[in-house]
């Protein structure tokens, strides 16, 4: 480091717009009587998610949150009601045009909402920042089939491997079935999505914290919003059964163990809160830096952050 790169990565006028957008979001939730909350950034428990690596603070060994989800669910179990939070989140190794190891999440929970109702609210919020647009909704399966790919719920790993071999880009070797789904989704499905698209009904194994659809237990009540091919938000009809959640988290831990990655313990305070009772609710996390980058018309989140990771 020679210090010569001390200047912000976002222009001053973009930072001013960022401040106005944040005020707009707070007004959106105030109008709806959704409570703004703050929870600790450093916590004793980490997350066991197979594809998310947390960072630890060296002195205390505590984990920097990868999202404020667990703390907010404890608030919900304690009866705080509808709530939202604008919080920094940290994920090791995620760096690129649309990733920064430290980023800002907007996360909110709505009691009595199901996934479709929450998608409606997400569109209203996104309209406030990006301007009104049409939101296309289809299932993960529907978007796969529309892209000419095999049915993601039934296809064998071999069939997916064959579809991957026909793509314009060559896939990495050694992907298992779920890795192939992720690869086909990123390389073939996402580039073909309409400008604003909600993808719903993800395969159940891709949604640890979501309720399964009663009508088809192969899929979870999970949705994602993509705008211009950028993944903006991820929401669930929240799983409220602590026994079911413990089973899923233990499977994640087992998978992390086999891939020789750090295996954080299960957050027992979250489990106790869920045993006490998480009210029926839907929740969503939205990447604010990405939303603001789209609103500013720039093509990297560094341009809407005061200082990105390499300059922090």
């Amino acid at each position: 480091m020679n210090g010569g790169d001390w200047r912000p990565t976002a222009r001053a006028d973009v930072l001013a717009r960022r401040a106005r957008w944040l005020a707009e979001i707070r007004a959106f939730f105030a109008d709806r009587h959704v409570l703004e909350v703050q929870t600790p950034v450093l916590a004793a428990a980490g997350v066991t998610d197979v594809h998310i690596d947390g960072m630890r603070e060296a002195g205390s060994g505590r984990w920097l949150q990868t999202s404020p989800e667990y703390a907010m669910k404890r608030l919900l179990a304690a009866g705080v009601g509808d709530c939202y939070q604008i919080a920094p989140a940290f994920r090791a190794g995620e760096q690129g045009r649309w990733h920064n190891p430290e980023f800002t999440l907007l996360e909110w929970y709505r009691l009595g909402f199901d996934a479709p109702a929450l998608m409606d609210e997400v569109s209203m919020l996104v309209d406030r920042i990006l301007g009104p647009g049409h939101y296309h909704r289809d299932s993960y399966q529907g978007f796969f089939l529309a892209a000419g790919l095999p049915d993601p719920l039934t296809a064998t790993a071999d069939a997916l491997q064959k579809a991957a071999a026909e793509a314009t880009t060559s896939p990495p070797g050694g992907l298992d079935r779920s890795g192939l789904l992720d690869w086909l989704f990123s390389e073939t499905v996402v580039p073909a999505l309409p400008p604003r698209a909600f993808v719903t009904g993800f395969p159940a194994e891709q949604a640890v914290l979501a309720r399964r659809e009663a009508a088809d237990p192969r899929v979870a009540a999970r949705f994602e919003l993509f705008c211009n091919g950028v993944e903006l938000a991820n929401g669930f009809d929240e799983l409220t059964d602590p026994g079911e959640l413990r089973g899923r988290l233990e499977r994640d831990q087992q998978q992390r163990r086999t891939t020789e990655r750090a295996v954080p313990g299960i957050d027992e305070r979250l489990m106790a809160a869920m045993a006490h009772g998480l009210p029926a609710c839907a929740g969503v996390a939205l990447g604010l830096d990405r939303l603001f980058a789209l609103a500013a018309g720039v093509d990297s989140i560094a341009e809407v952050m005061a200082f990105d990771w390499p300059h922090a």
Partner: protein
Amino acid sequence: MATYTTNQFKSGLKLMLDGEPYTIVENEFVKPGKGQAFNRVKVRNLKTGKVIDRTFKSGESVEAADVMETEMQYLYSDGEFFYFMDPASFEQHPAPPAAVGDAHKWLKEQDVCNVTLYNGEPLSVEPPPHVTLQVTQTDPGLKGDTSSGGSKPATLETGAVIQVPLFIQEGEVLKVDTRSGEYVSRAKD
């Protein structure tokens, strides 16, 4: 065997893929929030120049290509090979015409070139951005015409043919841009 992991990827990094040396042109980190992370890269084959798209699982290791760019002095050609010398070790490296490619049009003895070595053998040669070469043949220009437009072909001492202003005469020494193949000016001594 030296390897790189995907988090070291950046443009210019040299990799071995399917037994061929490549250089990274573009690297993009791609990750669905809850899914497997990938690196989507554009790589250029250092032998053929062909650019292809590849994806890697993030964290994957890839063999490094033993490719080194180094400055070398061009010595001479014996008709079969072009000989370059490492100015530090005085070691000579014969480069086949395929490696020299179009650069041969600009190579004058003693000039320092950027030579890419793969396993110690020249893989490609980049001439200096500007070279000074003598005109060996050109039609006589219009006398007194030193400024107005118009150009004519001129053959240089290396055999290259370029367009020059009408006032350039045989025997003159010119400065030439090797990237565009264009006349820059008369060489000032």
